[in-house]
Protein backbone atom coordinates (compact mmCIF):
# COMPACT_ATOMS: atom_id res chain seq x y z
CA UNK A 1 0.00 0.00 0.00
CA UNK A 2 1.27 3.47 -0.88
CA UNK A 3 1.82 6.04 1.87
CA UNK A 4 -0.81 8.32 0.38
CA UNK A 5 -3.39 5.51 0.33
CA UNK A 6 -2.62 4.61 3.92
CA UNK A 7 -3.01 8.24 5.03
CA UNK A 8 -6.23 8.58 3.05
CA UNK A 9 -7.96 5.50 4.44
CA UNK A 10 -6.80 6.34 7.97
CA UNK A 11 -8.14 9.89 7.85
CA UNK A 12 -11.33 8.86 6.09
CA UNK A 13 -12.13 6.08 8.56
CA UNK A 14 -11.47 8.44 11.50
CA UNK A 15 -13.53 11.26 10.02
CA UNK A 16 -16.50 8.98 9.31
CA UNK A 17 -16.49 7.34 12.74
CA UNK A 18 -16.03 10.73 14.47
CA UNK A 19 -18.80 12.44 12.51
CA UNK A 20 -21.19 9.60 13.32
CA UNK A 21 -20.22 9.99 16.98
CA UNK A 22 -21.05 13.71 16.83
CA UNK A 23 -24.41 13.01 15.20
CA UNK A 24 -25.39 10.22 17.60
CA UNK A 25 -24.40 12.38 20.56
CA UNK A 26 -26.98 14.94 19.43
CA UNK A 27 -29.70 12.56 20.57
CA UNK A 28 -27.83 10.37 23.08
CA UNK A 29 -25.65 12.68 25.18
CA UNK A 30 -27.13 16.12 24.46
CA UNK A 31 -30.21 15.62 26.67
CA UNK A 32 -27.85 15.27 29.66
CA UNK A 33 -25.73 18.23 28.61
CA UNK A 34 -28.88 20.33 28.10
CA UNK A 35 -30.12 19.40 31.54
CA UNK A 36 -26.76 20.26 33.09
CA UNK A 37 -26.56 23.60 31.29
CA UNK A 38 -30.11 24.46 32.37
CA UNK A 39 -29.01 23.86 35.94
CA UNK A 40 -26.06 26.16 35.43
CA UNK A 41 -28.31 28.79 33.90
CA UNK A 42 -30.67 28.49 36.82
CA UNK A 43 -27.77 29.13 39.18
CA UNK A 44 -26.55 32.06 37.10
CA UNK A 45 -30.04 33.57 37.05
CA UNK A 46 -30.25 33.25 40.82
CA UNK A 47 -27.02 35.18 41.16
CA UNK A 48 -28.77 38.07 39.42
CA UNK A 49 -27.35 37.86 35.91
CA UNK A 50 -29.87 38.37 33.10
CA UNK A 51 -29.94 35.87 30.24
CA UNK A 52 -31.85 36.45 27.04
CA UNK A 53 -33.61 33.11 26.36
CA UNK A 54 -33.80 33.56 22.57
CA UNK A 55 -30.14 34.50 22.34
CA UNK A 56 -29.19 31.62 24.53
CA UNK A 57 -31.20 29.13 22.46
CA UNK A 58 -29.44 30.34 19.31
CA UNK A 59 -26.10 30.01 21.05
CA UNK A 60 -26.85 26.45 22.15
CA UNK A 61 -27.96 25.56 18.62
CA UNK A 62 -24.57 26.76 17.36
CA UNK A 63 -22.76 24.93 20.11
CA UNK A 64 -24.51 21.62 19.41
CA UNK A 65 -23.52 21.92 15.76
CA UNK A 66 -19.96 22.36 16.98
CA UNK A 67 -20.14 18.95 18.58
CA UNK A 68 -20.47 17.35 15.14
CA UNK A 69 -17.47 19.25 13.73
CA UNK A 70 -15.56 18.45 16.91
CA UNK A 71 -16.50 14.80 16.39
CA UNK A 72 -15.01 14.89 12.90
CA UNK A 73 -11.79 16.49 14.17
CA UNK A 74 -11.51 14.14 17.14
CA UNK A 75 -12.16 11.19 14.82
CA UNK A 76 -9.45 12.39 12.44
CA UNK A 77 -6.91 12.65 15.23
CA UNK A 78 -7.75 9.46 17.15
CA UNK A 79 -8.02 7.70 13.80
CA UNK A 80 -4.50 8.89 12.93
CA UNK A 81 -3.02 7.32 16.03
CA UNK A 82 -5.06 4.20 15.44
CA UNK A 83 -3.85 3.86 11.83
CA UNK A 84 -0.22 4.09 12.95
CA UNK A 85 -0.71 1.54 15.71
CA UNK A 86 -2.51 -0.84 13.37
CA UNK A 87 0.16 -0.60 10.68
CA UNK A 88 2.92 -1.40 13.18
CA UNK A 89 1.15 -4.11 15.13
CA UNK A 90 -0.87 -6.13 12.64
CA UNK A 91 2.16 -8.29 11.81
CA UNK A 92 2.55 -9.31 15.45
CA UNK A 93 -1.05 -10.33 15.96
CA UNK A 94 -1.10 -14.07 15.73
CA UNK A 95 -4.11 -16.35 15.55
CA UNK A 96 -5.75 -14.74 12.55
CA UNK A 97 -4.86 -13.45 9.12
CA UNK A 98 -8.11 -11.58 8.83
CA UNK A 99 -7.34 -7.86 8.71
CA UNK A 100 -10.89 -6.92 9.68
CA UNK A 101 -10.62 -8.95 12.88
CA UNK A 102 -7.18 -7.52 13.60
CA UNK A 103 -8.49 -3.99 13.04
CA UNK A 104 -11.26 -4.56 15.57
CA UNK A 105 -8.85 -6.11 18.08
CA UNK A 106 -6.46 -3.14 17.85
CA UNK A 107 -9.41 -0.76 18.28
CA UNK A 108 -10.53 -2.73 21.33
CA UNK A 109 -7.11 -2.58 22.98
CA UNK A 110 -6.75 1.14 22.29
CA UNK A 111 -10.26 1.77 23.62
CA UNK A 112 -9.27 -0.03 26.80
CA UNK A 113 -5.94 1.75 27.22
CA UNK A 114 -6.89 5.25 26.08
CA UNK A 115 -10.55 5.55 27.03
CA UNK A 116 -11.62 3.03 29.66
CA UNK A 117 -8.58 3.29 31.94
CA UNK A 118 -8.60 7.11 32.25
CA UNK A 119 -12.42 7.07 32.53
CA UNK A 120 -12.28 4.69 35.50
CA UNK A 121 -9.85 6.93 37.36
CA UNK A 122 -11.26 10.29 36.24
CA UNK A 123 -14.86 9.67 35.15
CA UNK A 124 -16.27 12.10 32.59
CA UNK A 125 -18.53 14.79 34.02
CA UNK A 126 -21.33 16.81 32.44
CA UNK A 127 -21.30 20.61 32.56
CA UNK A 128 -22.42 21.88 35.99
CA UNK A 129 -19.84 19.63 37.64
CA UNK A 130 -16.38 21.06 37.93
CA UNK A 131 -14.67 24.15 39.24
CA UNK A 132 -13.11 26.32 36.49
CA UNK A 133 -10.34 27.18 38.95
CA UNK A 134 -9.04 23.61 38.95
CA UNK A 135 -9.16 22.98 35.20
CA UNK A 136 -5.39 23.03 34.63
CA UNK A 137 -4.80 20.76 37.61
CA UNK A 138 -7.51 18.34 36.42
CA UNK A 139 -6.10 18.40 32.92
CA UNK A 140 -2.62 17.54 34.20
CA UNK A 141 -3.97 14.64 36.25
CA UNK A 142 -5.91 13.32 33.29
CA UNK A 143 -2.98 13.66 30.89
CA UNK A 144 -0.62 12.03 33.37
CA UNK A 145 -2.89 9.04 33.84
CA UNK A 146 -3.52 8.79 30.10
CA UNK A 147 0.23 8.94 29.46
CA UNK A 148 0.99 6.25 32.06
CA UNK A 149 -1.61 3.99 30.46
CA UNK A 150 -0.59 4.75 26.88
CA UNK A 151 3.17 4.57 27.30
CA UNK A 152 3.18 1.46 29.45
CA UNK A 153 0.96 -0.23 26.86
CA UNK A 154 3.36 0.91 24.14
CA UNK A 155 6.44 -0.33 25.99
CA UNK A 156 4.77 -3.64 26.81
CA UNK A 157 3.67 -4.03 23.19
CA UNK A 158 7.33 -3.85 22.12
CA UNK A 159 8.25 -6.36 24.80
CA UNK A 160 5.41 -8.61 23.65
CA UNK A 161 6.65 -8.48 20.08
CA UNK A 162 10.17 -9.36 21.24
CA UNK A 163 8.89 -12.31 23.26
CA UNK A 164 6.68 -13.55 20.44
CA UNK A 165 9.54 -13.31 17.97
CA UNK A 166 11.64 -15.54 20.18
CA UNK A 167 10.53 -18.72 18.50
CA UNK A 168 9.98 -20.97 21.51
CA UNK A 169 6.32 -21.72 22.06
CA UNK A 170 6.89 -21.58 25.77
CA UNK A 171 7.96 -17.92 25.60
CA UNK A 172 4.91 -17.08 23.52
CA UNK A 173 2.62 -18.64 26.09
CA UNK A 174 4.40 -16.77 28.84
CA UNK A 175 4.07 -13.47 26.98
CA UNK A 176 0.30 -13.79 26.83
CA UNK A 177 0.22 -13.96 30.63
CA UNK A 178 3.12 -11.72 31.59
CA UNK A 179 2.33 -8.72 29.40
CA UNK A 180 -1.29 -8.13 30.48
CA UNK A 181 -0.34 -8.80 34.12
CA UNK A 182 2.44 -6.22 33.95
CA UNK A 183 0.01 -3.69 32.49
CA UNK A 184 -2.54 -4.46 35.20
CA UNK A 185 0.09 -4.04 37.92
CA UNK A 186 1.27 -0.69 36.54
CA UNK A 187 -2.28 0.60 36.21
CA UNK A 188 -3.31 -0.58 39.66
CA UNK A 189 -0.28 1.22 41.09
CA UNK A 190 -1.06 4.40 39.17
CA UNK A 191 -4.72 4.22 40.17
CA UNK A 192 -3.79 4.09 43.84
CA UNK A 193 -0.95 6.59 43.66
CA UNK A 194 -2.62 9.34 41.65
CA UNK A 195 -4.77 11.90 43.47
CA UNK A 196 -8.53 11.93 42.88
CA UNK A 197 -10.45 14.59 40.98
CA UNK A 198 -10.49 17.49 43.49
CA UNK A 199 -13.95 18.79 42.51
CA UNK A 200 -17.06 17.97 44.45
CA UNK A 201 -20.03 16.69 42.48
CA UNK A 202 -22.80 19.15 43.21
CA UNK A 203 -25.13 18.20 40.37
CA UNK A 204 -27.86 15.55 40.78
CA UNK A 205 -26.22 12.15 40.83
CA UNK A 206 -28.76 10.67 38.38
CA UNK A 207 -27.74 13.26 35.84
CA UNK A 208 -24.04 12.59 36.35
CA UNK A 209 -24.37 8.80 36.19
CA UNK A 210 -26.69 8.98 33.17
CA UNK A 211 -24.22 11.23 31.39
CA UNK A 212 -21.28 8.96 32.21
CA UNK A 213 -22.95 5.77 31.03
CA UNK A 214 -24.38 7.27 27.85
CA UNK A 215 -21.20 9.03 26.81
CA UNK A 216 -19.17 5.88 27.55
CA UNK A 217 -21.51 3.91 25.28
CA UNK A 218 -21.21 6.35 22.39
CA UNK A 219 -17.41 6.59 22.69
CA UNK A 220 -17.17 2.80 22.77
CA UNK A 221 -19.34 2.70 19.68
CA UNK A 222 -16.97 5.18 18.06
CA UNK A 223 -13.97 2.88 18.66
CA UNK A 224 -15.86 -0.13 17.31
CA UNK A 225 -16.93 1.81 14.22
CA UNK A 226 -13.38 3.03 13.71
CA UNK A 227 -12.10 -0.55 13.74
CA UNK A 228 -14.81 -1.85 11.42
CA UNK A 229 -14.54 0.97 8.89
CA UNK A 230 -10.75 1.03 8.89
CA UNK A 231 -10.56 -2.76 8.53
CA UNK A 232 -12.90 -2.66 5.54
CA UNK A 233 -10.93 0.17 3.91
CA UNK A 234 -7.62 -1.58 4.56
CA UNK A 235 -8.79 -4.75 2.84
CA UNK A 236 -10.30 -2.81 -0.04
CA UNK A 237 -7.13 -0.74 -0.55
CA UNK A 238 -4.95 -3.86 -0.40
CA UNK A 239 -7.19 -5.60 -2.89
CA UNK A 240 -6.97 -2.70 -5.33
CA UNK A 241 -3.21 -2.24 -4.99
CA UNK A 242 -2.67 -5.99 -5.50
CA UNK A 243 -4.78 -5.85 -8.62
CA UNK A 244 -2.76 -2.94 -9.97
CA UNK A 245 0.49 -4.73 -9.15
CA UNK A 246 -0.77 -7.87 -10.91
CA UNK A 247 -1.64 -5.86 -14.00
CA UNK A 248 1.86 -4.35 -14.12
CA UNK A 249 3.42 -7.78 -13.98
Amino acid at each position, binding site marked *: *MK*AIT*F*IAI*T*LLAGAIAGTIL*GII*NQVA*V*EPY*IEQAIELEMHNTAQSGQVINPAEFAAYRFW*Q*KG*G*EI*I*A*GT*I*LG*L*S*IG*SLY*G*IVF*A*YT*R*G*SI*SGTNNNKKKALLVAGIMWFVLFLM*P*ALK*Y*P*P*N*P*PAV*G*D*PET*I*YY*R*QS*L*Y*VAFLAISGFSALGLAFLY*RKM*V*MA*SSNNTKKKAIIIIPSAYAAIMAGAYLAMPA*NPDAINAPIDLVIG*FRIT*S*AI*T*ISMFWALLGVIFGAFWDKANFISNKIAARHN
Partner: protein
Amino acid sequence: MLVGNQITKTSEGVPRIAVGILLGVLAFGVFIVGFDQGEMLGFTVPADGSGSEQGTNWAHEFYHDMRHAAGFPCH
Protein backbone atom coordinates in the same frame (compact mmCIF):
# COMPACT_ATOMS: atom_id res chain seq x y z
CA MET B 1 9.43 -18.62 11.28
CA LEU B 2 6.23 -17.61 9.56
CA VAL B 3 5.43 -15.09 12.26
CA GLY B 4 8.93 -13.65 12.10
CA ASN B 5 8.68 -13.16 8.36
CA GLN B 6 5.40 -11.37 8.66
CA ILE B 7 6.76 -8.98 11.23
CA THR B 8 9.73 -7.89 9.16
CA LYS B 9 7.57 -7.52 6.11
CA THR B 10 4.94 -5.36 7.78
CA SER B 11 7.08 -3.11 9.94
CA GLU B 12 9.18 -2.17 6.94
CA GLY B 13 5.98 -1.31 5.16
CA VAL B 14 5.03 1.68 7.33
CA PRO B 15 6.20 4.85 5.59
CA ARG B 16 7.84 7.39 7.91
CA ILE B 17 6.24 10.31 6.12
CA ALA B 18 2.78 8.89 6.75
CA VAL B 19 3.55 8.40 10.43
CA GLY B 20 4.79 11.98 10.69
CA ILE B 21 1.74 13.48 9.03
CA LEU B 22 -0.69 11.38 11.07
CA LEU B 23 1.06 12.24 14.35
CA GLY B 24 0.68 15.90 13.41
CA VAL B 25 -3.06 15.45 12.86
CA LEU B 26 -3.30 13.61 16.17
CA ALA B 27 -1.57 16.34 18.17
CA PHE B 28 -3.49 19.18 16.57
CA GLY B 29 -6.94 17.58 16.77
CA VAL B 30 -6.69 16.24 20.29
CA PHE B 31 -5.34 19.54 21.53
CA ILE B 32 -8.03 21.77 20.09
CA VAL B 33 -10.93 19.46 20.92
CA GLY B 34 -9.67 18.14 24.23
CA PHE B 35 -7.42 20.66 25.90
CA ASP B 36 -7.28 24.14 24.38
CA GLN B 37 -8.24 26.83 26.87
CA GLY B 38 -7.61 29.67 24.44
CA GLU B 39 -3.84 29.35 24.14
CA MET B 40 -3.80 27.96 20.68
CA LEU B 41 -6.10 29.67 18.27
CA GLY B 42 -6.30 33.13 19.73
CA PHE B 43 -10.07 33.12 19.39
CA THR B 44 -10.43 34.58 22.82
CA VAL B 45 -12.45 37.68 22.07
CA PRO B 46 -14.58 39.72 24.46
CA ALA B 47 -18.08 38.31 24.68
CA ASP B 48 -19.68 41.74 24.51
CA GLY B 49 -17.16 43.31 22.16
CA SER B 50 -16.18 45.88 24.78
CA GLY B 51 -12.54 44.88 24.96
CA SER B 52 -12.73 44.15 28.66
CA GLU B 53 -10.63 41.47 30.32
CA GLN B 54 -13.52 39.05 30.43
CA GLY B 55 -13.51 37.10 27.17
CA THR B 56 -15.07 34.13 25.49
CA ASN B 57 -12.97 31.43 23.92
CA TRP B 58 -15.14 30.74 20.91
CA ALA B 59 -13.15 27.71 19.74
CA HIS B 60 -13.52 26.15 23.18
CA GLU B 61 -17.23 26.95 23.19
CA PHE B 62 -17.64 25.41 19.74
CA TYR B 63 -15.95 22.12 20.66
CA HIS B 64 -17.23 22.24 24.20
CA ASP B 65 -19.97 19.58 24.15
CA MET B 66 -17.73 16.99 22.53
CA ARG B 67 -15.03 17.68 25.10
CA HIS B 68 -17.44 16.62 27.83
CA ALA B 69 -18.89 13.75 25.80
CA ALA B 70 -15.44 12.32 25.00
CA GLY B 71 -14.44 12.31 28.66
CA PHE B 72 -11.91 15.16 28.69
CA PRO B 73 -11.86 17.34 31.78
CA CYS B 74 -13.81 20.57 31.35
CA HIS B 75 -15.52 23.10 33.56
